[in-house]
């Protein structure tokens, strides 16, 4: 399915947000997710079904001052 992830178009074979995170092999406890502007708690990742063209943000803590 076509998703806009971190601003770029991706075609990935996933159905839930949880699968997106594992698709990219992200450390679940280090990543924060947003779907169409709404933050999704980790506990709801599996329950969050994705639809064609949804905008997903995957963010994390990086070095900063």
């Amino acid at each position, binding site marked *: 399915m076509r998703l806009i992830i971190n*601003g770029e178009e991706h075609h990935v074979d996933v159905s839930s947000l949880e699968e997106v995170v594992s698709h990219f092999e992200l*450390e679940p406890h280090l990543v*924060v997710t947003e779907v169409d502007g709404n933050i999704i708690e980790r506990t709801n990742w599996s329950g969050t079904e994705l639809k064609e063209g949804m905008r997903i*943000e995957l963010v994390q803590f990086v070095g900063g*001052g």
Partner: protein
Amino acid sequence: MKQKKLTIAGKELSSRFFLGTGRYPNPFVQNEAIKASEAEVLTFAIRRVNLGAPNEDAILQHLEGMSFTYLPNTSGAKTAEEAIRIARLAKASGLSDWIKVEISVDEKTLLPDPIETLKATEVLAKEGFVVLPYTSDDPVLCKRLEEAGAAAVMPGGAPIGTGLGILNPYNLELIIEQANVPIIVDAGLGSAMDVAQAMELGADGVLMNTPVAKAKDPVKMARAMKYAIEAGRLSYEAGRIPKKKYATASSGFQAFVSK
């Protein structure tokens, strides 16, 4: 004679040194510097995962096993709205409800926008965040931020990363005099002298990143800054001598040895 500890939002901190986590040569040096600094509060930025190399920037994995208070910042935000969004994302990590509000429009100076910073501080404090806004050294603005619910106020000594030190010690002293919340000097410091000055002016703590991370020897510099904070704080508590125009001898003039 024992020092009172710094307390922010009810949390008692064992160190007055807030350390940034950006720009170190490598994760090993960074961790050694963090250890040497004995800092308890670490700052971070929030960025999109690089999906090509997801773990590359995942700084937290390097810190596992150590325990810190995480202070994510809203760097990159140009408006209160953007800062608020970043703050909520940071909180959703479950790692911390502390947030350093940092809103800059001008990429050349990275100076904080007073209006947007005040707005974001107000909203986030109401939402229950522990808000530490990075602000200019405008004493009236600093007071306004306190009234808006900031848990601590963080005036900059000089623009981020310049190492110019405390450009306006007068304003900083005024800010400290008027404050009912801790004042943490953030940004612009470059040397142990700058840090000692901030603490002797009565600052409650210092937040640094570049001066440590970009020093020739970051680990040694982290130790230097730790001692500078200790020195400045002790001196502030010990009560320095007044400045005088003319000299005073260390021994009496009487009983000189002379014919």
